[in-house]
């Protein structure tokens, strides 16, 4: 909310410097987001009065006004069409800083000769002063402006930009802010003196009011002013409205807005003659009831919304916007002025559903108090009579079905120190609360506190404790460390697993990325070159902001591939990326499952291009190596088995199987997928569900003694059918107890082996923990191994 300092000063003496005031308010919960100084650069500009105007000898459109500045007079050249003798104007001396009326640039005024006449100074338009964009004529000041006064003193102001928290609708008003300043600085508050003459005809003879929906309208007040004349409101009101960011309309509407800004109570003015049957009915709208609002738009309502109606039709959407059918216009002569209180949730619903946020809406939905209706309507009635003439009917209409008493709350010094951790005396507590208008009745170390009528946010003792703390100052609260015994900890193993995995992956040279959890079907479908069907359908966001953020990702790989593609525009080396994050799998009438998944991709040359390396590409076995290394570090026993993931190359993929369950996959991307993602190179991927893996990770390992007896190594070159896998050979060799290790060091097929066959060369390590093996023992076992390989796999020794 924008708040002009001068308006505040009308109600309170402000004795501290502006920056201090801003700081005090901010610390106490009324954040000053910024402040704008009006007239901060008005040096050398004063109030003057035109005492004579003579024609310019050489130009018809220019005139030569003489300006009285008290002790001196100046004659200047002006092209302004609107000057007349007697007007008070802003006079700029040579050297003043002004805004150019045409270009908008700031310039420093110099003495100038215009068509042969020297002009030492200038009379200014609003635009030249930087007040508004108006440059049609010079700004005419009110007649009471004091000649020779500095314009900055007379018209300058500071506009605070306040951020009012949703619990403080009372602070969405000048008076509300003044009350805060009064509590913080100890200065007294001066509220407007309100009084006006009333006619003899009672209001109830001229309007009747019925509240059909008292749950949505706790109070409805109205006044009636007849014989008004609609006109522009005076400059001072217009300027204040503009300073607060509101557009002046006419004297009646401006008064309703002015009083809303001053008191925080939204008001609405109806053209009394357009209210049929002189009856106001506050009721729920009927379903699909329509009303054209003040902005000329037809709004279709629903039965959850509240309207102000006459006998025949809705004349306003309660608390949100008035209807065009009862709008105040130039022909209006009588005003029915509404000051009502509405249910906050209902107003919020209506404003949100109709997308009609307004200043009024904002105040109602935050829960202003019904007591506020009366002072506000009296003030507005007074101002209308003052500015638009007319006469108020006798009395006010006031229907008040929802009267709420502020209940006293018991507060003790011990409760205050229990929450704040610092002892305040009862005197300190009472003085803080009293300064804010709270009523305090003390009893030993306790006090019964009743909140003032304008506070809607005080319900229990902690609310009072906050008041005490913020008025006394949060800086009075000491900083202490928690002194209670440390709670028992049960660290979640998934957290340490994630951390371990991340640290391993960066050790393997992978860069971590974080991508958005929301993605699009389009990108997900690129992963499915064969079936084109996502099963199950991922969760959709009902109100997506953009089409590419509509679905919750069911996998990480799509985003990784998109990132690879994007980076390929500027990277030609090897790229290794991983993301560790959640995927979202739809549940049955429940929240989705959110398993933690690790996915990595690798593509491009294995080693950076350099003076000592070749240019081999990262391939399937690199991806597999990462998974094997990681699983080994985590102490997980796994095997790589056949897999049929359609995003991956048909034969270059393997499922990671742990305890009989597929928990992940490694493979080369299906070339159709890389093409769909516009990636030119081969890409390999690994993916594993860490949530599923977690139970199989061993948090502790059992020590294996270091072998005491020497090992015997034997190399065997086998010839087998090409379909025989290394794994099968290895499993057979490993099944012999004397074998402690088996590793493959060559795979060959070509000229020296028959067609359909391949040669596999193994190094077998024989070792026992109990004794040194003899050649004879090893020879015997080696024979057995060869027999078994031959009978089960058809393997022969390569000659």
């Amino acid at each position: 909310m924008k708040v002009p300092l001068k308006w505040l000063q009308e109600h309170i003496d402000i004795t501290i410097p502006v920056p201090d005031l801003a700081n005090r308010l901010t610390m106490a919960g009324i954040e000053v987001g910024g402040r704008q100084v009006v007239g901060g650069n008005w040096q050398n500009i004063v109030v003057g009065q035109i005492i004579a105007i003579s024609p310019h000898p050489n130009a018809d459109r220019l005139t030569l006004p003489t300006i009285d500045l008290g002790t001196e007079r100046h004659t200047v050249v002006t092209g302004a069409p609107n000057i007349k003798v007697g007007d008070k104007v802003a006079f700029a001396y040579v050297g003043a800083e002004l805004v150019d009326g045409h270009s908008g640039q700031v310039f420093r005024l110099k003495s100038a000769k215009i068509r042969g006449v020297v002009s030492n100074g200038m009379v200014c338009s609003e635009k030249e002063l930087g007040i508004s964009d108006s440059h049609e004529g010079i700004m005419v000041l009110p007649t009471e402006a004091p000649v020779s006064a500095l314009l900055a003193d007379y018209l300058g102001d500071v506009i605070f930009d306040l951020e009012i928290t949703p619990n403080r609708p009372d602070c969405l008003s000048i008076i509300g802010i003044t009350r805060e300043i009064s509590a913080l600085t100890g200065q007294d508050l001066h509220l407007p003196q309100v009084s006006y003459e009333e006619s003899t005809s009672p209001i109830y003879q001229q309007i009747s009011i019925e509240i059909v929906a008292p749950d949505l309208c706790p109070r409805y007040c109205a006044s009636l002013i007849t014989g008004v004349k609609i006109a522009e409101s005076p400059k001072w009101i217009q300027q204040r409205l503009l300073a607060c960011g509101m557009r002046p309309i006419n004297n009646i509407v401006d008064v309703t807005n002015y009083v809303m800004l001053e008191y925080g109570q939204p008001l609405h003015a109806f053209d009394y003659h357009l209210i049929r049957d002189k009856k106001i009915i506050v009721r729920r709208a009927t379903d699909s009831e329509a009303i054209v609002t003040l902005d000329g738009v037809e709004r279709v309502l629903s039965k959850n919304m509240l309207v102000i109606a006459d006998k025949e039709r809705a004349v306003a959407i309660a608390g949100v916007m008035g209807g065009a059918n009862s709008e105040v216009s130039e022909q209006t002569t009588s005003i029915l002025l509404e000051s009502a209180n509405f249910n906050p949730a209902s107003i919020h619903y209506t404003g949100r559903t109709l997308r009609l946020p307004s200043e009024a809406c904002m105040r109602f939905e935050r829960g202003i108090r019904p007591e506020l209706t009366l002072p506000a309507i009296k003030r507005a009635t007074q101002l209308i009579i003052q500015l638009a003439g007319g006469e108020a009917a006798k009395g006010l209409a006031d229907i008040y079905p929802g009267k709420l008493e502020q209940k006293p709350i018991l507060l003790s010094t011990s409760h205050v120190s229990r929450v704040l951790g610092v002892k305040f005396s009862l005197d300190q507590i009472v003085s803080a609360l009293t300064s804010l208008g709270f009523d305090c009745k003390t009893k030993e170390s306790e006090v019964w506190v009743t909140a003032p009528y304008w506070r809607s946010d005080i319900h229990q003792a902690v609310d009072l404790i906050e008041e005490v703390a913020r008025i006394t100052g949060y800086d009075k609260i000491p900083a202490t460390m928690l002194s209670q015994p440390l709670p028992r900890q049960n660290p979640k193993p998934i957290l340490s697993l994630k951390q371990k995995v991340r640290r391993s992956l960066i050790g393997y040279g992978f860069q971590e990325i974080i991508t958005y959890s929301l993605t699009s079907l389009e990108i997900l479908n690129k992963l499915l070159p064969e079936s084109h069907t996502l099963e199950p359908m991922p969760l959709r966001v009902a109100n997506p902001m953009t089409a590419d953020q509509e679905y919750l990702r069911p996998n990480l790989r799509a985003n990784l591939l998109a990132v690879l593609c994007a980076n390929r525009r500027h990277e030609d080396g090897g790229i290794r990326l991983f993301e560790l994050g959640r995927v979202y799998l739809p549940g049955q009438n429940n929240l989705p499952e959110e398993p933690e998944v690790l996915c990595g991709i690798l593509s491009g040359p294995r080693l950076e291009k350099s003076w000592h390396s070749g240019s081999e590409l990262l391939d399937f076995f690199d991806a597999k190596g990462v998974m094997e290394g990681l699983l080994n570090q985590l102490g997980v026993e796994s095997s790589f088995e056949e897999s049929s993931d359609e995003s991956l190359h048909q034969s270059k993929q393997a499922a990671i199987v742990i305890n009989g369950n597929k928990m992940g996959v490694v493979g080369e991307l299906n070339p159709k997928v890389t093409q769909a993602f516009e990636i030119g190179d081969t890409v390999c991927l690994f993916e594993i569900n860490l949530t599923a893996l977690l139970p199989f990770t061993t948090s502790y390992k059992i020590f294996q003694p270091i072998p005491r007896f020497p090992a015997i190594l034997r190399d065997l070159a086998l010839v087998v059918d090409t379909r025989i896998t290394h794994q099968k050979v290895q499993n057979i060799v490993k099944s012999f107890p004397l074998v402690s290790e088996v590793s493959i060091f060559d795979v060959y097929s070509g000229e020296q082996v028959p067609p359909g066959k391949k040669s596999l060369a193994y190094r077998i390590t024989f070792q026992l923990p109990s004794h040194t093996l003899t050649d004879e023992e090893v020879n015997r076992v080696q024979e057995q191994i060869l027999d078994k390989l031959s009978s089960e796999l058809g393997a022969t020794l390569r000659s």
Partner: protein
Amino acid sequence: MLKQLEEMESSALRELEDINRIKGLESWQVRYLGKKSELTNILRSLTTIPLDERKTVGAYANKVKVNLENSLGEKRQTLREAELAVSAKGEVIDITLPSRPFPVGHLHPITQTLYEICDIFVSMGFQVVEGPEAEWDYYNFEALNIPEEHPARDTMSTSWIDFETESGERPMLLRTHTTSVTARIIETMQPPIRVVEPGKVYRYEASDATHTPMFYQIDGFAVDRGITMADLKGTLYEFARRFFGEDRKVRFRCDYFPFVEPGVEMAIECSVCRGAGCRLCGNSGWIEILGAGMTHPQVLERGGLDPEIYTSFAFGMGIDRLPMLRYGIDDIRLLYNSDLRFLRQF
């Protein structure tokens, strides 16, 4: 025979003198000290010569043997040192050539920040917990004193999940803050409680230099007998001191969040202008870091904790801003665009 020994000794020593590689010592040793050497033969044949001669020859032969062995040892030592001296100088390489590169990965700056923050709170007795990102309206709003049509909902534009109950309600959303985890913890854990709750949160917002539809937060929550706002201040000041450094001023001011009372906003002195006011801090001199407060008694009660027995504090802070402030990153989208030229810098 003595003469023979004498000649043998001097020729052996001469030959030894000329050897300049360690490998050459072996054949010399075989020739002069080996099993079939002249010296061994002489020593072996001592028994065949007369006793009086035997004594002198034997003593002399042994002296020669010791002398040759010592000379060999010395020579070996000299040659070894010489060889080491050569290999230490060794081959000349151009050390300015680039190294053989090891691929290097980096944790995402957000991950690094999160781990750092969690470590600080863990050291103060807090335990790290996580909760679901797709959440019920209840835990995200209702349980935290934000019922339907509460204006506080407007400050957290929500992405709703396309899921309807049989009665036509749409109660599933992407959590707008990690405080939803606090709502769950209240229900499931028994005091004393000290937890921090990091994770992703979502807002229905267009992205620009300071907003993304997804970002990170961490919430904290402590419940016990006798926890006060002074403890909240102490805990958060300690965090700020360790994360931002000793010399940065910290400010606690009144603010409003529906689930705490009294409510707090904590700010640190702007790193750029040190409090003087600049563009980064919007001329205030302060940068808002987190919201906090004493957990609202209704929130505790709703979760089954008795506010007459327990007091509690809670805080919540955005993570993304922290690496942005620390590294001077001016566009939050860089954190999620996964440009390697950006990520490799951390």
